[in-house]
């Protein structure tokens, strides 16, 4: 069984798909619904082939790859600063959060450590991109379940966070601000004050969402007890982030094994978990994390040390030979980079461990027996970004 397009494998799969006798006692005929690459509920181009018995999903198979840009092949011919611009396009909602683990892995290989002020600003921007990412989830999840207004509130209040990221880094979505050994530039005047009231707006947004969505009985009836993922299944599939914490696993990379470049130990904050592991649990954990992130940013803003933003690093970066793997708690889950370097300008191999890839591989397991509307709420609650899956 070596040939990739092995005819027996494919024909057996095709036979299974066409075997329409789904429900023998009712003699009903199954329907294969193709929630194609272009569908409002898949955040981008994910295709789900669902075999239905009436409205009940017999089997749902997500098919990624419509947005595969071949990042790991591109990293073989790009230097470190160029990969940095490439990498913040993986999870384009929380884009600064993609650069951080890559830069930390390169810093560990080079044995360089960013000055404290740079680490502070890096952690602040890390949490700002988390808010930008997850606040859109809250609005978008309401949109997918029918509550249109939540979506508009999310976009409205997220705008303040994006403006702050643009004021500091120059790019709203693709900051390209993190450098090996520190940051590209320091903060502009008045940035801290503006970020403070941006955070107040986010906290007000959280209260509004609490009334409009989380507390809404219809929303709860659509999400409680649906798409339950027990802890051991979540661990064995490698689910991470809010999806894992919603199944009751108290694990957060920012607290348990925080890489040296971030300053989460200087802030007192709480890791939120939820026992049920259902769609509501995941939404609830992310909702609390947004509020927690806003409080973290406010604390960090008040305690920024002064000092340089860039350590002594040669202009042309040649990372010494070696391998390193750094994983951080990104908005979507645990994201990590395994960099193999042979001492040149260009890394030899970069394995990108993205959170949504594992988060979506659980769909065939969790979607069995769900209704079509539940499939949408399960997909929405797992909260994946297409660039994260397809890399």
């Amino acid at each position, binding site marked *: 069984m070596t040939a990739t397009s092995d005819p027996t494998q494919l024909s057996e799969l095709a036979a299974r798909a066409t075997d329409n006798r789904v429900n023998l006692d009712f003699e009903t005929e199954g329907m294969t619904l193709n929630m194609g690459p272009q569908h409002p509920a898949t955040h981008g181009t994910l295709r789900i082939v669902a075999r239905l018995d009436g409205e009940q999903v017999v089997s749902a198979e997500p098919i990624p790859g419509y947005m595969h840009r071949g990042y790991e092949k591109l990293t073989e011919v790009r230097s470190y600063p160029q990969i940095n611009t490439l990498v913040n396009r993986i999870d384009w909602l929380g884009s600064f959060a993609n650069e951080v683990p890559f830069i930390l892995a390169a810093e560990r290989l080079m044995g360089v450590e960013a000055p404290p002020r740079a680490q502070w600003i890096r952690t602040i921007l890390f949490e700002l991109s988390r808010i930008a990412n997850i606040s859109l989830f809250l609005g978008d999840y309401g949109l997918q379940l029918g509550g*249109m207004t939540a979506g508009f509130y999310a976009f409205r209040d997220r705008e303040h966070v994006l403006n702050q990221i643009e004021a500091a880094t120059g790019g709203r979505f693709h900051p390209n601000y993190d450098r090996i050994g520190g940051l590209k530039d320091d903060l502009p005047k008045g940035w801290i004050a503006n970020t403070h009231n941006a955070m107040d707006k986010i906290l007000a947004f959280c209260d509004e969402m609490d009334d409009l969505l989380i507390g809404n009985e219809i929303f709860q009836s659509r999400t409680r007890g649906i798409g339950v993922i027990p802890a051991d299944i979540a661990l064995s599939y490698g689910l991470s982030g809010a999806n894992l914490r919603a199944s009751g696993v108290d694990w957060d990379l920012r607290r348990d094994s925080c890489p040296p470049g971030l300053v989460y130990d200087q802030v007192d904050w709480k890791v939120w978990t939820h026992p049920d592991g259902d769609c509501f649990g995941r939404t609830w954990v992310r909702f609390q994390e947004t509020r927690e992130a806003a409080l973290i940013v406010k604390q960090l803003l008040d305690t920024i040390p002064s000092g340089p933003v860039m350590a002594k690093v040669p202009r042309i970066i040649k990372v010494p030979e070696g391998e390193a793997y750094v994983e951080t708690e990104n908005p979507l889950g645990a994201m990590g980079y395994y960099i193999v370097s042979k001492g040149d300008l260009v890394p030899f191999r970069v394995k990108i461990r993205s959170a949504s890839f594992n988060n979506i591989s659980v769909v065939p397991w969790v979607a069995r027996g769900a209704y079509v509307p539940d499939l949408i709420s399960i997909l929405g609650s797992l909260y994946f970004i297409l660039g994260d899956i397809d890399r």
Partner: protein
Amino acid sequence: MTLLLASFDPPYWLSTLIKVLVISAVVPTTALILGMVFLFKVMSWMQSRLGPQEAGPRGTLQLLADGVKFLQKEDIAPNGADLFIFKIAPLVVLMSTLLLYVALPASAHLVISDLDVGVFYVMAVSSLSVLGVLMAGWASANKYSLMGGLRAAGQLIAYELPMVLAVLGVVIQAGTLSLNGIVFAQADGSIFGWDAIGNPYILTQFVGFAIFLAAVQAELTQPPFDMPVAESEIVSGYQVEYTGFRFLIFFLAEFATAFVFAGVASILFLGGWAVPWLDTSSDWYYVLGPIVLFAKVMLVSFLIFWIRFTYPRFREDQLQSFAWKFLIPLALVNIVVTAVLKVVL
């Protein structure tokens, strides 16, 4: 002025012609006004934005622009579609809406035909749209629209029952089926002797009013009951394959039905075109009737659209169990209580 109107007694064919012209003018304009005010303006205000501003003064002619846009779009039918049924499905839905306007009284004499079985007729005709929706869903040879059509069939039938039972309470209290009769009953009635504002049935029949509103929300397939057109799941359900003026007819039918159901609700529960301090027989109602009715309709439809913009949608089975297990028993209890009180008082 009143003499002129009273003596104006046109032959039968002329009066039908006038009535047809009035209806074909009233239905699109009311749908446009309702769509414009609520779908564009009120929804945008609720979402901290201003809505369309470019077309017409402050964006008021936007729906007209959309209408023209739809008209000049190509009318596509999917090749696997059952063409004849595919083409007449929107007309069936629009027909049920037009028939509803026939019985809607804007004042004592301004009504197309004052049926004495008005309520019975309205309830019967409003279930016609189910056929149109099912035809659209089935004929467009598209899995998504098939699911949309079947969901619509299940939902619309399930919510016919609570609507009829809710209206039954009003009919028992008014003692008549004719819509104008109910308006007169509300105007002259009194709540335990105190008849300063007559007896709008919303005060005594508030349970019936709540059930009627929920049923209307479901008839119009609006959130929280918008499974048939769940745009994030089955991409606007049975309307998925429709383009051009057929989609415009669906759009028109949806808002015209919203207007007429809000009209029926305001007549049954808010005293219709009558205003408490003006006696129902005065001739002022030739002018005042439609305005009062329009104001009450706007109030009721604000309630309908307000719920539409706020709530997520029920799942299919939750929606059905809400109708069968909650609304219908409640409506039956309401009827029993009304009947007992009617006899006792």
